[in-house]
Each structure stands twice: as structure tokens, then as C-alpha cells.
């Protein structure tokens, strides 16, 4: 180690703490020192001032509205929800809002993938030849149950809840891919309140196109005991190519009227 003589090991530890490289035990030690000693707190604050500007390059990503709802619940606050405000990042920051309104799934699609951190750079408008796919999975009452975004290149899918209907205890939503004229293929279990990332197996990817639909059925928490849906279908939606530019309002989504069980 060729650190200058005036750098005590302590100062280095504070720097390492702020950078984030210490293991859990060492972190806990420093955190304790910061609470107990003004000197430690000052040194850590100085390092924060030095290093935190790196976070400036991290792109803003609007969290889904239900996160604020959960925070209010946990703290038992009664403040009104914060208004969603369009910022200069326009498209990107408005996506959560569109999604929440249940429109523009295709445009939301690309952004969700960005939110998931798939592209490692700051979000920039995606080139039109990137073939993400998306589906708004609608419920019988017309509201959006979930929004699904697929990245066939990486074999990944992100499913974000909109306003799914409540499930009875002991039941959970399972997502299916139904190829045109084919039987449902299980994709995986999703949830009512959290985004789920699913891996798409090659066999499933092969069937993933705009003639297929996505559907959600009511199943036991561990999933359907058979390879086919066993409970009622509560939501479904057509798969479309994700629109990577333009206004979200223009995106038309076909809602397939076919019942899942009819084709099972």
C-alpha cells in the first residue's frame, strides 16, 4: 500500500464505507462509529461530498405509484398522494403514469426494460429496430390487470401490476402464453403488488409473436398442478411490438375475446 503517511487507516475505512466496498461486518462497525463519534461522522460526510456527485450520472426513473402508497401505509400517513409531474425527460418519466392509466403498453414496454436496468447506459431513445414486445393484460372490467414487456433477445419478461382484482386467500395469479390455435404454455407466477421478472425459455420464445396472447388465471400459490390452467381466467391481452417512439396515445392494442379455457 503506498498511501501517503498522513492518511490514517481510519480515513481510508471511511472512504471505503462511502464507496460501498466494505463487507457487512465492517460496514456495521463504521456505521456504529459514525453514530458514536463526531470525528467519524465528519470524515464520512466529507467523503460523501467527494464521491456522491458520481450519482449525478444515474438517470432518473419514476417509481410506480404503488410505492408511495406503500410508504404512506407503512408510516400511517394521511397526506394526499403526490401529483405526478412531467419533467423534461418527458417520455421516460411519464411512462409510469401511462402505465397506471392502463394505456400505451407498447410505449411503456421499452421504458420498463430500461427501468429494469437491462440497458446499462442512461436511458436514451431506443432505436426503432430493437424488437421489444408488450401486452396490456386487461380484466373483464376493462381495467388493466398487468402490463407485460418482453425482450426476446435476452429472453426476459417484466410484468408490472396495474390494478389487478383481488384474489381470494390461497390463490395466486399465473401467467400463460397462448399461441394462436395452440394450448396455453405456463410462463410463471406473477403477483398483485410487485413487478416480476420472468425468464423465457427457448421453447416459449419460439411461440412468442403477435398472433399469441397472454392470459392470467387463478391458481394455487405454487402454480397450476397440471400443465394447463385450472382456475378462471381473470385477464388477457394481445401481444404487440413495442413502439419505441411517437406518442403513447396512438398505440392501439387488440384485446382478444377468446376465452383461455376454450382453447385449453
Amino acid at each position, binding site marked *: *500500500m503506498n498511501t501517503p503517511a498522513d492518511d490514517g487507516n481510519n480515513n481510508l475505512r471511511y472512504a471505503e464505507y462511502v464507496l*460501498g466496498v466494505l463487507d457487512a461486518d465492517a460496514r456495521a462497525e463504521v456505521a456504529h462509529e459514525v453514530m458514536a463519534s463526531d470525528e467519524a461522522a465528519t470524515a464520512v460526510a466529507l467523503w460523501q461530498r467527494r464521491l456522491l456527485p458520481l450519482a449525478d*450520472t444515474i*438517470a432518473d426513473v419514476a417509481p410506480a405509484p404503488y410505492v408511495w402508497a406503500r410508504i404512506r401505509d407503512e408510516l400511517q400517513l394521511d397526506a*394526499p398522494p403526490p401529483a405526478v409531474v412531467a419533467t423534461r425527460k418527458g417520455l421516460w418519466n411519464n411512462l409510469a403514469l401511462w402505465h397506471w392509466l392502463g394505456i400505451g403498453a407498447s410505449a411503456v414496454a421499452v421504458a420498463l426494460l430500461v427501468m429494469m436496468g437491462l440497458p446499462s447506459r442512461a436511458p436514451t431513445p431506443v432505436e426503432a429496430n430493437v424488437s421489444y414486445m408488450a401486452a396490456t393484460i386487461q380484466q373483464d372490467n376493462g381495467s388493466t390487470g398487468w402490463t407485460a414487456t418482453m425482450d426476446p433477445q435476452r429472453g426476459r419478461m417484466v410484468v408490472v401490476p396495474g390494478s389487478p382484482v383481488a384474489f381470494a386467500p390461497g390463490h395466486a395469479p399465473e401467467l400463460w402464453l397462448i399461441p394462436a390455435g395452440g394450448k396455453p404454455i405456463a410462463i410463471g407466477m406473477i403477483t398483485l403488488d410487485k*413487478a416480476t421478472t420472468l425468464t423465457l425459455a427457448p421453447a416459449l420464445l419460439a411461440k412468442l409473436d403477435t398472433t399469441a396472447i397472454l392470459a392470467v388465471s387463478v391458481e394455487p400459490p405454487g402454480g397450476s398442478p397440471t400443465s394447463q390452467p385450472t382456475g378462471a381466467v381473470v385477464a388477457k391481452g394481445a401481444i404487440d411490438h413495442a413502439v419505441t417512439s411517437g406518442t403513447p396515445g396512438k398505440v392501439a392494442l387488440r384485446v382478444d375475446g377468446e376465452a383461455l379455457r376454450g382453447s385449453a
Partner: protein
Amino acid sequence: MSVTSAPEHEELNQLLMQCGRNDQKAFAELYRRTSSKLFGVCLRMVRDRGDAEEVLQETYTAAWRRAASFDSAKASAITWLVTLSRNKAIDRLRQHRVELLDEPSRLEEIVDEQPTPAVEAETSQEHRRLERCLDELEPQQRSSVREAFFTGATYNELATRCKVPLGTMKSWIRRSLMQLRTCLDQSA
């Protein structure tokens, strides 16, 4: 970034202090103005959207409970909040350490991330100064510092990802930190 101007910093400081006096409206406003920034940070570190949402929730509930201890003389509200979110994210990463070690493919996606020109133009003076000092480091050491900051990885994880001995990684990072300090304190 949406929160870099001095007047905005001051407004956020005021909001956080109001939170310390149990002002729920100020808290809602603070969330509205900072949550996209903090969620970006959380997502960048923990990668999984569901996990990032939980870390964001932990961050704001902790912020509300600890707001009374906020001292604007020591740090700005946004620095305080970003620090809190990074700490929560790192705590979460440490709980899942074993799984993360199994993902070497993450490295190529992340190492030596440079800001895009558009983002660069919007960043703060402090950030530009830090970038200048980072540029003076050896490329591998610069990459390691960035990787560490953006992913919250431990020395062990960094060494594995960069395929160098643990001692080498420690030496790179420590030397970089001391060099950065000298550079930043000179130009401050």
C-alpha cells in the same frame, strides 16, 4: 438531473427539515421531487425492480423517521437522501451476496460507464470536478472505482468480477481513493 441547482437544493433542505417537524405535506412534496432520482439510484444498484421498490420504500420510511436528525450544515438534503438510499441498497446487496457472485456477466454491462453527452451537460460542477480527477486515474483503477460505486460490490466481488487477486483490487481502490482525495481537495 432534476435536482442540481442551488435554489432547488435549498428548497429540498427546507422540505426535509419540515419533515423533521412531522409535516406530512412536505414529505409528500419531498417524495414527489426526489423519488425518481432515488429510484434511479436504487435500481442501478440492486438491479431487480421489485427489490429496488422495496429499497426505495425503506429509504423514505427511514427518511421520515430520521428527518429530525438532518443537519443542512453537514450535507444537503439530496446528498442525505441519496446516501440513505445507497446505504439501504448496499444492505440489501449484502444480504444477497452469494447470488450476486454468480453473475459475472454483469461486469461487461457495467464497468466504466460513462455519462452520455446529454446527461453530462446537465450534471453539477461538483460532478465535473470529480470526473476530471477520475480521469487522472489509471483506466483499470477508474473502472474499479466506478464499478464499486455503482454496484455496491465488496472488494471480494470486485476482485472476482475483474479477475484480479483480492490484494490487487484493494490496492487499486485504496490508491484511487487517496488520489481522488488529493485531487478533489486541491481543486476545491
